[in-house]
C-alpha cells in the first residue's frame, strides 16, 4: 500500500488547492458586488424590519 507523501500533498495543496480557494473567493466577491444584486440585497435587509405581521399566504 502506497501512502501519499508530504511532498505530494504539498504540491497538490499549492496548485489545485490554491486555485480552488482563489476561484471561490472570486466567486463570492463577484456575487457580492454584482450590480444587479444590489436591489435584491437592499430588499432583503429592509424586509426583516416588519415581519411580525405573520406568514405570507
Amino acid at each position, binding site marked *: 500500500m502506497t501512502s501519499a507523501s508530504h511532498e505530494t500533498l504539498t504540491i497538490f495543496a499549492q496548485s489545485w488547492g490554491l486555485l480552488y*480557494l482563489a476561484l*471561490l*473567493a472570486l466567486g*463570492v*466577491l463577484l*456575487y*457580492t*458586488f454584482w450590480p444587479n444584486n444590489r436591489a*435584491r*440585497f*437592499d*430588499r*432583503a*435587509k*429592509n*424586509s*426583516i*424590519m416588519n*415581519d*411580525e405581521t*405573520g*406568514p*405570507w*399566504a
Partner: protein
Amino acid sequence: MTVAGRHDPFGIHGIIVLLTGLGCAFCLIRDYYTPEPGADRLSSYYDEPIKAGILLALIWALIGMFFGDWVAWLLAYPQMTFDADWSSFGRMRPIHTTGVIFGFGGNALIATSFHVMQRTCRTRLADQLTPWFVLVGYNLFCIIAVTGYLMGVTQSKEYAEPEWYADIWLVVVWVAYFALYLRTLARRREPHIYVANWYYLAFILVVAMLHIVNNLALPASLARAKSYSLFSGVQDAMVQWWYGHNAVAFFLTAGFLGMLYYYLPKRAGRPIYSYRMSIVGFWGITFFYVWVGSHHLHYTALPQWVQTLGMTFSVMLLIPSWIAAANALLTLNGAWHKVREDATLRFMMVAAVFYGLSTFEGSFLAIRPVNSLSHYTDWTIAHVHAGTLGWNSMIIFGAIYYLVPQLWKRPHMHSPALVEFHFWSAIAGTFIYVFAMWNSGITQGLMWRAYNQSGTLAYSFLDSVMAMHPYYIARAFGGLLFLIGTMVGVYNVWRTIQAAPAHLTQTEQPALPGSPQAAPLVGS
C-alpha cells in the same frame, strides 16, 4: 440500556432515557385524540417551541453559571469539594462548560433559530412535532452529559466529554434539526434567504461534521459507558483541536452572528449597515475558521508547518471578524440615543464590542511567540470568558429581553430597572473576571519562564500557584456578580410571563414542553 448496564453508570443513564421516553409517550397518547390542527395555523408563526427553548436556556444558564462559580471558588479554596467524589474539580468543570455552552448557548441558538427562520422566511415552521423532538432530544443529551460527569463518565475530550451513546443520540437529534431548517427554508415566501439564516445553517452543518469525526470511537462493550477513540497520539490531538476550535467558530460564533444580524437591526429599528459586508464576512469566517485549530498545539509534536498554517489563518481571521463587529456598530450609528436609553440594545452593543475585542485577542494569542507566554496560563481563560461572558451571553440576554415581551404578548418586561441592574452587574462581573485572569495569566507566564543568575528556574510551580490566590478570589467574585445578574434576569422574565397579557386575544398555553412532542423510546 437499564438492564444491560445495571452494574455501570450506563444503567442509570438507561433509567433517565426510559423516564424521558415514557414522559414523551404519555404526552403523545394524551394528545392523540386532539383534533388535527386546522389550515388556519399556517397564517400564524409557531411560537410555543421558541418559548420553551428560552426557558430551558435560562434554566441551564443558572445551572451552568452556578457550577462555574463554584469551581472558581474551589480554585481559591480547595477544601470546597467537601470530600465527595462528584464535587472534584475534574467532574464539576465539565458541568460548567457543558451547562453554559451546550445547555444555555445551545438552547438559545435553537430557540432563536426557530424564531429567525420563521420571521425571515415569512412562513410557519415546517411541522408541529419536529421542533419538540429537537428540543427534548437535545436537552436529554445535555442531561445525560452532565449526570455522566458526576459519575465520572467522560471520554476526556474537551467540550466533547459525553460518551458514545450520548454522541450517537445527538447525531439523530441534529439531523432532525438540520432537516427541519431546510424544510422551513423550502417553504419560504420571501425570495431571498436573509443572511442570518446562512450563519445558523453553517452552525448546524459544521457542528454535525465536527461532532461526528471527533467522536469516532469504539465502545469497550455495548453495555458499558467506556469507549476508545479511533485516533491516537498527535493525530488525536489535532482532530480534537480541529473540533475544539471549530466548536468556538461555528457554535459560539457563526450561530451567534446569526443572532446578531437579526436581533440588533430589529431592536435598533435600523436595517444592517451593509448587507454586502455581511456576505463577505460570512464566507471569510467559514473558510478561515476551519484551518485555525492547530494554534492550540504550538510547540508540540505536531509538524511545524501545520502549526504555522493554523497561526497564519488565525491572523487572517481578524479581517472577517472585524467586518462583522464593525457592521454591527455602524448599524448603531445614528441610534446611539437608543443605546443610551435601552438596556436591551445596550446588551447587543456591548456584545459586538466584546466580539471585536476577543477576536483581536484570539488572533494575537495564536501567534507562536505570544503563545509561548500565554499558553497553559490563565490568559487563555481570560480570552475565553471575554468571548463567552462579553459576547455570547450579552447577545443572548439582548435577544431574550427582545423576545420575551413579544412572544408572551406583553407591552414590555416586568421591570426595566431590573434589566438595567442585570446589564450593569453583568458588565461589572465580566470586567472583574477578565482583568483578574489577564493579570494572573501574565504573572503565571512570566514566573514560569523566569531564570535566576545561575540559569535555573527562579520560581517553583507552587510559588506561581500561591501568587494566583488573590486573582482567583477576584475572578470568583466577578463570576458571582455575573451569576447574580442572571438570577435577576430569570426573575424578571418569570414575572413578565406571570403578568396579565396586554391584549387578551387568546388564552396562552403554559410554555413548558407539554403539548405535542415526541422522542422515540430508545434502547430502554
